[in-house]
């Protein structure tokens, strides 16, 4: 009897081992490094650092800038959500050529970030296509050094992120709308509701769980998936004005040889992202319960 209870655990052991190797071991290593001055040679010995790496990043102005920039990137999320739902509603009305619009909107999402970054990087130069366009329309005053000035570089990256990530939100919303009972919309229209009223009282409420899910995913993206944009478009510059937490980690580990500091920043980033991941699971669970 006792041995039969152990059998299922025995069967699941390989899976536990796999999960342990893939996730637990790297995580444990990350935490270990965060508590060490990592060296590994007679010239640079590894020593226990306690919490000094965490105390260091807490006082490091560059890390504070990085965190602030991640928080500023959060501003992309309401924009993404609002524009996604609006465009999805317009496409769901199936105007002429709606399939083309849908494809065009989704296209940036499937492009690789380096490609997007390089192309927009060229376009946003001081003497690039965007400013040339402004100048040729007599709007020279609007021309800015988009990626070369400390005040414009981050908003410009935010614009590119929104441009790229929008397609995902639109497709999510359109997919959800197609599963909503058509009678709801019909009934509203029969009752004399115009487009805006239908949008406000039917479309948006029906999309609420999807939008929440999308918002959480995008918040996670703004925290831990923006490295490539920054690396390709600005390398954290000018004057470190676009450094985000991921870039800070990269710089600490690979440029400045402070693996412990990078790991400590990684632990903090992981902790914040974990909260959002938990939130995402909770929302998914709550939404599915609501549907049941």
């Amino acid at each position, binding site marked *: 009897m006792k041995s039969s209870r152990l059998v299922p655990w025995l069967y699941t052991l390989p899976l536990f081992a796999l999960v342990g190797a893939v996730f637990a071991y790297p995580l444990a290593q990350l935490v270990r490094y965060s508590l060490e*001055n990592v060296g590994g040679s007679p010239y640079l010995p590894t020593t226990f650092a306690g919490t000094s790496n965490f105390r260091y990043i807490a006082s490091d102005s560059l890390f504070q800038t990085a965190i602030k920039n991640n928080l500023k990137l959060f501003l992309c999320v309401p924009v993404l959500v609002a524009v996604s739902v609006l465009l999805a509603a317009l496409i769901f009305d199936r105007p002429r050529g709606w399939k083309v619009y849908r494809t065009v909107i989704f296209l940036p999402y499937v492009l690789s970030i380096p490609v997007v970054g390089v192309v927009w990087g060229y376009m946003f130069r001081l003497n690039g296509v965007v400013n040339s366009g402004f100048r040729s329309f007599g709007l020279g005053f609007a021309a800015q050094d988009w990626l070369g000035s400390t005040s414009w570089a981050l908003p410009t990256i935010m614009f590119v992120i929104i441009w790229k990530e929008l397609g995902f939100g639109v497709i999510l919303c359109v997919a959800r709308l197609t599963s909503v009972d058509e009678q709801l919309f019909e009934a509203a229209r029969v009752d004399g509701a115009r487009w805006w009223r239908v949008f406000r009282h039917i479309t948006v409420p029906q999309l609420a769980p999807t939008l929440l899910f999308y918002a959480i995913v995008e918040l996670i993206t703004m925290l831990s998936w923006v490295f490539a944009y920054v690396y390709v478009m600005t390398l954290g510059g000018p004057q470190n004005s676009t450094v985000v937490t991921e870039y800070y980690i990269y710089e600490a580990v690979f440029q400045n040889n402070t693996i412990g500091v990078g790991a400590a920043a990684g632990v903090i980033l992981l902790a914040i992202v974990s909260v959002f991941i938990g939130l995402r699971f909770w929302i998914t669970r709550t939404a599915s319960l609501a549907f049941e």
Partner: protein
Amino acid sequence: MNRIHRRAIKLAAICGTAGAIAIGSAAAGTSGSESGSTASATERGSQFDVSKAGNVTLTVWWLGNQEVPGIEGWMKQTIAKYHALHPNVTVKTVVQSTDTWTTTQKTACKGRTGPDIWYNWAGTWSLEQVWAGCTVPNESVLSPADLAHVKNIDETRWGGKSWVYPLYRFIYPVVYNKSLFQKAHLNPNKPPANWQQFIAACKKLKAAGITPIALGLKDGFGGEILGSATFQKQLFSSYRNLVQLVVNGNFTSPLWKSWITRAAQLKPYVNNDVNSIAFGDGLSRFEVGMAAMVFGTPGVQATIAQMVKAGKKVSVMKPPVFGGGSYANSLVNTGNGFQVTSWSKNQSTAGSFLAYMHTPERLTALYAQTGNFPADDRWNPKQAKRPTDRLMLGWLAQKRVYYPANYYPTDLDVNGNFVVFQGLLGGKMTVDKAAQTYQSVITKWRKLHAAELQNYKKWAG
């Protein structure tokens, strides 16, 4: 030169322990190599009997044409010739990306796996790998005769050993367009020699509607190259002082600020989009005649050759002098080359291959195929016929001055030079703020790198 040699000897005496470790690890590395026998000093590098090694495959990681256009063809030829001499040895090369190069090296080193030989820049870039235990000293894989001909090994001398075997030299002149100088009524055959003359020339060029200097700072390297090769070197007569500055100096001192003040004066004379274009883009603008001057960069000889071929009249000058250090009036050079990794099982053969790259025939071919100056006195400089090359070789022969950025931590480069130049020339950063930026970076660095700081102390002697 003598000063550096003396420093090396003194360092060797002071760093007895470190030296012993280095020798120990080198010996361990060699004894575990191909034949299992320990190679004596006379059996290393060119003296090593490769036939003893058995069948060996050497892997080389490097940056190929990204660093020196045309060098991949030369390497292919070198490998073929070496294989013809030593059929038991096969050499495989892997071109890595410059952008991720240090990352790739650190990852390989952490896993103790990777190539037998890798490319590296001199100074700190190489020493950071040394301190992480990734490479062995030249002395354990090359013979004294192999080393005696390569003066640039002094640039990466630490703990009584040299740690990179330079193949070619990067040089950093100011390149100027003679036609545009003429257009601005400047004497194209008498370029500005000191700072006042340089600024006066910039004013005249600007007044003539010509962009005086083309520069791109987006990727930061422009800040490093300009700051290091043009400005910072002028403060010193020995880089031991620069290393000492890293150890416990003050970067807000009037001396350090003296070069920042000059650098800030360039702002009206560089293109207005410095922060939105990369260093290479600035160079391209100069090449097509959109600016009168450009601060030289690795591969500058190839740029000049192309421009001359296209019918442009270009020449070179030394960076304009303002400083009081004996390095002020000089042309900076840095020797880049190869290191043998500490985990390689073929260290002796690797040393033999490195030595083969330095045979006179290969050095002649290197200059012929790339235009870069070999870092070896077995190369005959008379091979250089281009007037600009002859000028630069003359300056290099006068004084051997290395690249200052090779003597301080990468952090000071990335968060110091990169940031400061973006701020000074593309933003609104003041001289005081720039100096504080350097000080703040070095203060943080000292706090975080206690063990590395000890290595710098040894370096400073």
